[in-house]
């Protein structure tokens, strides 16, 4: 019986243990239920979004960007199809094998593709990774053939921006680059969008861009589209016609080859910019390729700043070209008449300091025409002394110096027109009369851009109407200059300018059959006490060269402003560049060629 009791007790003990086990299992089951509640009840919406991310793929439908044409309808910036390779690593069964497969077709190292993939995953973990651009059609075909075994690859057709004329139109057009953090912050750009930088691409971004569409498809776990969820059509960008004349533009850029500088050619009647060249230049097509950061670094660190548009972003002393403004100001203010003469012995003393003329032996007795023709410094020292800095500054501003021209090219600089107030404000000191003498020949603190120079020349060519320059074909007529320059004052100055080209310092720009008025300028970079030839000096110590001009003198239709950085004398370095452009212009406008002298 004792055994029986013991057995029964044992059975009860065991039953208790079973119940304890059951309670433990029950608690575990409750914990599991709790976990489902957390995942489904609490975080459900997040997981539902993840599920939608799984099944919905958004493909932007890129709006074709507006094509940019020159004035004759020749395309300058257009779109060509480019085949890019995208990799969706989630779809890949074995990423290493996928990369090996792709590397064999692309003829590259798997490791290189892996680095691109890793970099992409870090930045944009959910999007397919761009691992190759510009596939050949043969490569595209091989990826398409392997689509069943390698569904993780997708060949994506993108419209690639093509700048057919590469370096020749770089500064006018600008380029496209991937939208940066600042652009993304505006909310109108997504990661991976391209945005216009510099030039027309930037200025007319809103019109050129259009609006991207979107295709949302339902995909299965292999990435195969099983259904279309939604589609929004894109809106194409607006095409843009420029005032630029491709032939003149190419000529201008060619004339600047191996030089550092800028050329602006515009129609003085309406401000239409026919050519805007800057050297050294760059190939804007490089930026459309997204996988080449080394080119960007190289362009950024180039000491000659090829990205800079020197036509509008370089502000420098105008040198002797400023004598045009000085002559007109002197006449208008009646400090000289067209026949007033000054004697040039090679130098003159003002305010107890000797100022040299560029010609040591002197020009002798010169009136305004001769002073312009030979660019006599002493004549204009005298004009400058009689005018004083305030009146000089007023006339300089009248011609547009010291403020932006309003051109539709981004990044324009205003330059500087100094006066006493400027001196007090910026230098915290008085304006010295001796500085006025320097400014009279375009030296000193006065700074102008090549485009401002062209606009000034357009005003001179027009008899005072100063146009607003523009590269897009939308400019209006120039504004009339209200105050100031009497009609009779233009003629002697223009005669002087024509003499410059016919037989003066600008003769290197002489084109038979075309009457050109122009003015050279040479800007000293370092003070020279002994005169040595330009080619014997270090590049960065050589003078800057200017040449500004218009033609035909009687019915001006083209203004050409040339600036050559460290080119030496304006007569030798800048004037021949203008000559090349006038010759090209005459080819297009043979009607402007004057009848040969009989």
């Amino acid at each position, binding site marked *: 019986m004792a055994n029986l009791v013991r057995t029964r007790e044992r*059975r009860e003990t065991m039953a208790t243990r079973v119940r304890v086990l059951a309670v433990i299992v029950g608690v575990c089951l409750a914990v599991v239920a709790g976990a489902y*509640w957390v995942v489904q009840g609490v975080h459900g919406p997040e997981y539902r979004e993840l599920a*939608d991310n799984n099944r919905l793929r958004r493909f932007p439908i890129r709006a074709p960007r507006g094509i940019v044409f020159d004035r004759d309808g020749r395309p300058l910036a257009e779109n060509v199809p480019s085949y890019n390779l995208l990799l969706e690593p989630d779809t890949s069964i074995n990423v290493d094998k996928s990369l090996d497969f792709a590397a064999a077709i692309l003829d590259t190292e798997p490791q290189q593709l892996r680095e691109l993939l890793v970099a992409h995953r870090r930045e944009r973990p959910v999007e397919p990774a761009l691992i190759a651009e510009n596939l050949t059609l043969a490569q595209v075909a091989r990826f398409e053939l392997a689509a069943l075994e390698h569904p993780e690859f997708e060949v994506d057709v993108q419209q690639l921006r093509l700048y057919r004329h590469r370096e020749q139109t770089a500064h006018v057009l600008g380029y496209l680059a991937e939208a940066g953090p600042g652009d993304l912050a505006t909310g109108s750009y997504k990661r991976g969008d391209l945005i216009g930088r510099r030039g027309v691409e930037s200025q007319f971004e809103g019109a050129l861009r259009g609006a991207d569409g979107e295709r949302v498809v339902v995909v299965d776990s292999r990435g195969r589209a099983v259904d279309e969820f939604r589609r929004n059509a894109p809106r194409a960008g607006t095409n843009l016609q420029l005032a630029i004349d491709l032939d003149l533009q190419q000529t201008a850029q060619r004339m600047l080859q191996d030089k550092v500088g800028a050329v602006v050619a515009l129609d003085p009647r309406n401000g239409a910019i026919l050519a805007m060249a800057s050297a050294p230049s760059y190939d804007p097509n490089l930026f459309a390729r997204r996988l080449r950061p080394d080119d960007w670094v190289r362009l950024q660190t180039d000491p000659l700043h090829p990205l800079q548009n020197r036509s509008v972003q370089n502000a420098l002393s105008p040198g002797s070209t400023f004598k045009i403004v000085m002559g007109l100001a002197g006449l208008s203010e009646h400090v000289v008449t067209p026949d007033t003469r000054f004697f040039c012995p090679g130098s003159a003393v003002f305010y107890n300091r000797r100022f040299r003329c560029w010609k040591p032996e002197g020009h002798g007795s010169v009136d305004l025409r001769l002073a312009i023709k030979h660019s006599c410094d002493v004549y204009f020292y005298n004009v400058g002394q009689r005018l004083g800095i305030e009146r000089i500054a007023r006339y300089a501003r009248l011609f547009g110096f010291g403020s932006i021209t309003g051109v539709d090219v981004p990044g324009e600089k205003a330059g500087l027109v100094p006066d006493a107030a400027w001196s007090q404000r910026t230098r915290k000191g008085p304006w010295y009369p001796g500085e006025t003498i320097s400014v009279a020949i375009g030296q000193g603190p006065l700074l102008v851009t090549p485009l401002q120079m062209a606009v000034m020349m357009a005003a001179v060519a027009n008899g005072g109407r100063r146009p607003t320059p523009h590269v897009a074909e939308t400019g209006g007529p120039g504004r009339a200059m209200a105050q100031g320059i009497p009609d009779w004052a233009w003629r002697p100055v223009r005669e002087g300018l024509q003499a410059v080209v016919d037989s003066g310092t600008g003769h290197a720009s002489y084109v038979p059959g075309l009457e050109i008025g122009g003015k050279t300028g040479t800007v000293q970079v370092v003070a020279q006490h002994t005169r040595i030839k330009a080619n014997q000096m270090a590049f960065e110590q050589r003078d800057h060269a200017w040449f500004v001009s218009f033609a035909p003198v009687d019915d001006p239709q083209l203004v050409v402003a040339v600036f050559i950085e460290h080119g030496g004398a304006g007569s030798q370095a800048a004037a021949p560049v203008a000559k090349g452009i006038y010759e090209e212009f005459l080819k297009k406008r043979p009607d402007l060629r004057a009848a040969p002298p009989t």
Partner: protein
Amino acid sequence: MRSSSRSGPISGLLRLPEEAATAGIGRLGNVRWSLLLVALMLAVVGAATVHSASAEMPVEYLGRQLAWVGAGLIVFLVVFSIDYQRLALLALPLYASGVALLVLVLFFGQVRGGARSWFGFGPLGVQPSEVAKLATAILLAQYLAGREGEYLRPREIFVAVGIVLLPMGLIVVEPDLGGALMFMPMLAAMVLVAGVRKRDLVVAAAAALVVAAIGWGFMHGYQRDRVLTFLNPQRDPLGAGYQVRQSKIAVGSGELAGRGYMQGTQSQLRFLPARHTDYIFAVLAEEWGFLGVAFVLLLFGSFLFGCAEVAARARDRLGMLLAVGFFATFAFHILYNTGMVVGLAPNSGIPLPFLSYGGSFMLFCFAAAGLVLGVDFRRYVNR
């Protein structure tokens, strides 16, 4: 005192008076039939979910699953009708056959899911590990029921462990770590209920840790991956973490009320792997939401408590240990699988009882249910 199964006259004295009153007549009415009802409800839910899960598959699994459920019912009836005490007499030969099958499968079996674990008969297949599990449970219960002491002696624990370790080892070799692991809860629960000294328990736990550490050294690369991925799911989201992540997304996206039957995007668009077998519960969670999950978990809970109740009121140690063994096996399958689907446990090939598609395991579950209800049915038998 020996186990009652061996000494009929004495065992009659063991019966409690109130039980004696109902003995013999109307016994079928006192069996906990709700256990079978719940199992069938689960099987119906499972078949419906398998239908949804295989909608996008080349094979429609609904018909096969229903056939397996039907076969399971027959197996249930056969096992239910066999007296477990008679079965226990055959424990050793059954066990030997199970082990022999496990050895044979290593040489003649088919490889499925990376493990050589199947005997194929045309389109059908049998997993000998499920047969071995049944046989092992019977031998283990029979052996432990025969121990006399209040607590098991260390030597007896060693024998119990040995009984389980032999088939386990053979399954590990296949290699099917998850399948082998399913022997452990049975062993632990039976030994615990049979009685272990605290001191021995501590030593056993320590020994288990050491074995686990050594086992880690013998693990296959993918098995280690699974464990490491479980510990840190971000470790390899594209590789071993894929299943876990997709499963969790499926479960979570079901939210409260579910996406609707056959409407789960994770299942229907094939993001969810093994969705008709090991991850069937993720399909259910996605399409029926937390309400469906709670309903099925309640069914499982009532099933498990039914098993525990049968064990607690079993007539003898053998019946009690048998029922406890299967209770623990079911509990572990259910907890591990549902936990794995929601990301609480590492990915492993452990199916969900009555829901997951799969013939052998379905038959095992019905056989186990038959054994458990057979124990309940015979709690009043006077022999």
